[in-house]
C-alpha cells in the first residue's frame, strides 16, 4: 500500500486548486519572462506548438484513453480542421472567426461519417479502417491541385475584430492557444466525469457488459468519435492560423497520428492531464535535442555523435516502447494520476459526504475539489 499512500500525498497536493491556478499563472506569465531573457519569439513559438498539439492529444485521448479504441487515422481530423479553415479563408474569403467554428462543426460531422464506417469493426480492423481513411485523404490531397498538392494552402494570418495575429510577434497566438488548452481541458474533464464519460469508460473496460447493461454502445462510441474528431479540428484550426500553411505531409500523414500516440502514451493514457504533459514532453524533447544539444557537440566530432541531435525520435521511440512495456500509466501515472476512479471516491460522491477517511486510489486526475 505504500505506493498508493505516497501517490496519494502527491495527488492531494495536486488536487488543491491552488497548484493548478499557480501553474496557469506561471504559464500565462511565461512570454513576459521569455521576453526578458531575450528568447521571446523562439521560446514562445515552441510553447504555442506544444499547446496546439496538447489540444490534439487531448482529443485523441478522449477516444483512445476513454473508449479503448485505437485509431491510426486521427490526424485526418486535425487535417480536416486545418484544411477547412484554410479553404474557407483562402477560396471563399470567409473571415477566420466564422471559418473556425464551421471547420470544427464540419469535422465533427465528417468524423460521424468515418465513425459510422469504422465502428462496424473493432480492434485491429478498426485501426486499419481509420488508417485507410486517413491515407485516402493524404494521397488525394497530395495530388489535388485545388488544395495546392504537396505544398498545401498558404493563408494570411487571421484578423479578428481588427486584431492582426502576427507569427513573428506571437503573443496573440500564445494567449489564444493557452485559452484553447484550458477550455479543452475543462471540457474533456466535464465530459469524462459526466454519465456520458462513464459509459465510455465502461465500454473501454468491457464493451459486452456495457451493452448487456442496456447502453446503446454504438451511439456512445459514435458520439465520442465525433466529439474527439471535432476537438482535433480545434487543434487543426489553431494549426492553420498559426503556421499559416496547411500541407498534407504535416497534417494528414499517419506519422502525425503517431506523434499523438507518443504524446498520450508517454504522458499518461486515459488521464486528463496526461496528453498535456505528453505534448510538452515530446515537443520539448524534440527542441531540446535538435536545437540545444547541437551546441554541445564539438566541430569535428565523429559522425555517430554528430548525428545524435537530429535523431530525437529514436529516444522518444525507445521511451514509448518502455512506456508500453513497463509504465503503462505514463508520466501522469508517476505523478499520482490514475486512470481508474477509486471506489472510495465514487462512494463519497454517491453518499454526498465529504472526503472519505482514507481514500485508497485517487480519481482520474485534475484539480477536483
Amino acid at each position, binding site marked *: 500500500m505504500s505506493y498508493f499512500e505516497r501517490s496519494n500525498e502527491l495527488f492531494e497536493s495536486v488536487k488543491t486548486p491552488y497548484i493548478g491556478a499557480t501553474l496557469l499563472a506561471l504559464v500565462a506569465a511565461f512570454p513576459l519572462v521569455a521576453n526578458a531573457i531575450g528568447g521571446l519569439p523562439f521560446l514562445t513559438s515552441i510553447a504555442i506548438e506544444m499547446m496546439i498539439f496538447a489540444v490534439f492529444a487531448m482529443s485523441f485521448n478522449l477516444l483512445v484513453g476513454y473508449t*479503448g479504441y485505437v485509431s491510426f487515422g486521427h490526424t485526418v481530423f486535425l487535417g480536416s480542421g486545418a484544411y477547412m479553415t484554410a479553404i474557407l479563408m483562402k477560396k471563399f474569403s470567409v473571415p477566420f472567426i466564422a471559418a473556425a467554428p464551421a471547420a470544427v462543426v464540419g469535422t465533427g460531422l465528417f468524423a460521424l461519417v468515418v465513425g459510422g464506417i469504422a465502428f462496424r469493426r473493432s480492434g*485491429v*480492423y478498426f485501426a486499419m479502417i481509420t*488508417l*485507410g481513411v486517413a491515407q485516402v485523404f493524404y494521397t488525394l490531397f497530395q495530388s489535388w491541385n485545388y488544395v495546392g498538392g504537396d505544398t498545401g494552402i498558404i493563408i494570411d494570418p487571421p484578423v479578428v475584430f481588427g486584431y492582426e495575429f502576427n507569427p513573428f510577434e506571437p503573443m496573440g497566438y500564445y494567449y489564444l492557444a493557452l485559452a484553447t488548452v484550458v477550455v479543452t481541458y475543462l471540457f474533456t474533464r466535464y465530459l469524462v466525469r459526466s454519465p456520458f464519460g462513464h459509459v465510455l469508460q465502461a465500454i473501454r473496460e468491457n464493451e459486452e457488459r456495457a451493452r448487456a447493461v442496456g447502453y446503446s454502445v454504438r451511439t456512445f462510441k459514435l458520439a465520442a468519435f465525433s466529439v474527439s474528431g471535432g476537438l482535433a479540428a480545434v487543434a487543426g484550426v489553431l494549426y492553420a492560423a498559426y503556421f499559416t500553411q496547411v500541407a498534407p505531409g504535416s497534417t494528414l500523414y499517419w506519422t502525425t497520428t503517431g506523434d499523438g*500516440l*507518443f504524446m498520450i502514451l508517454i504522458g499518461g493514457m486515459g488521464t486528463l492531464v496526461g496528453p498535456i504533459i505528453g505534448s510538452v514532453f515530446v515537443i520539448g524533447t524534440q527542441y531540446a535535442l535538435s536545437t540545444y544539444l547541437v551546441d554541445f557537440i564539438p566541430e569535428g566530432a565523429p559522425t555517430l555523435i554528430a548525428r545524435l541531435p537530429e535523431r530525437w525520435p*529514436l529516444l522518444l521511440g525507445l521511451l514509448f516502447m518502455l512506456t508500453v512495456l513497463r509504465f503503462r500509466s505514463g508520466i501522469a501515472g508517476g505523478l499520482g494520476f490514475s486512470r481508474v476512479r477509486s471506489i472510495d471516491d465514487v462512494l463519497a460522491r454517491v453518499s454526498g459526504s465529504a472526503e472519505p477517511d482514507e481514500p485508497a486510489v485517487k480519481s482520474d486526475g485534475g484539480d477536483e475539489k
Partner: protein
Amino acid sequence: MTPLSVGLGDLATTFVNGVSYGMILVLVALGLSLVFGLMGVLNFAHGALFMLGGYIGLAVMELTGGGITGFVLALIIAPLVVAAIGAGLERTVYKPLYDTEPIYQLLLTFGLAVVIEEAVKYIWGAAPPGVPPRPAVFDGAVVFMGISLPYYRVFTILLGAAVVAGTALFLSRTRFGLIVRAGVYNTDRTATLGLNVERAFTAVFGLGAFIAALGGVVYIYRAIEPSVGASIILPAFIVVIVGGLGSFWGSVIAGLLIGIIWQFAAVYAPVPAGTVIFLVMIAVLLLRPQGILGEAEVEV
C-alpha cells in the same frame, strides 16, 4: 502496327510490372500474415525489418565490392542477420505482451517501427544511400510474344515464386510446419498437447523477418531509403487484410492482386494508386472482413 496491339503491349507491360511489385508485397505480407495467424499480433515493425534487410544488403555489397557476387551474398547474408534480429526482438520485446490487450501490442510494434527506422538513420545517415549500379547480368530482357520482360523483373518474380513455394513446402511438409499450422488454428490447444509453441513463435517471427529482408535486398535496385519501411507496411497491411489475416495463400493471391491493381491504377486511374488500394481495403473490410481466403471469424 495498329493502335490496338500497342495498347495490348502496354497492358501486358503494366501487368508484368504489377506482378513484379506484387511479389515484393507478397514477401512482406507473408511474414506479417504468419505472425498474425500464430500470435495475433499485427506487426507494424515488419516494414522496418524489410528496410533493414535492404540496408544490411547494401552494406554487404559494399564490403564485397558489389557486382553480381556482392548481390548474391547480400541475398544470403542480410536475411540471416535480420532473421536473427527478428527472433531476438520476439524473445525480448514482443513476448511480454502476448497476454495483454491487443492495443498495447499494436502500440508497441508501432514504437518499434519508429525505433528501427531511426536506428538505421542513425547508423547509415538519413539521406537515401542511392541505387548501386545493377550487375550486367540483369541488363536485357526476355521477349515473349512480342512483350519485352526485363530480366530484373523476371528475376524478382521467380525469386518470389521460389520463396512462396519453399515456405509452403516448409509449412506443409515438415513437422515444424505442422506445429505452426496447428498453432495458427488454435494456440492454446496446441500448447496443451505438449508441443513447443513458444519456440514456434520465435521461429516464425525469424522466418517472417528472413523473407521480408529478402524482399528488402531485392528492393535495393528500386531505391531503398529509411522511410521505405513505413511506406511498404501500408500496402502490406492492405494485402494481408484483403487476403484474409493469417491466411498464407490469401496473402499470396492478394499480394499479386494489389500489385497489379496498383500498377494499373498508377497508369490509368484518375486518382493516385495509393488512394485506390486503400479504397479496396476499406471495401473488403466492410463487405468481406475475413478477406479472400480468411476463415477466421472476425469480431464485428
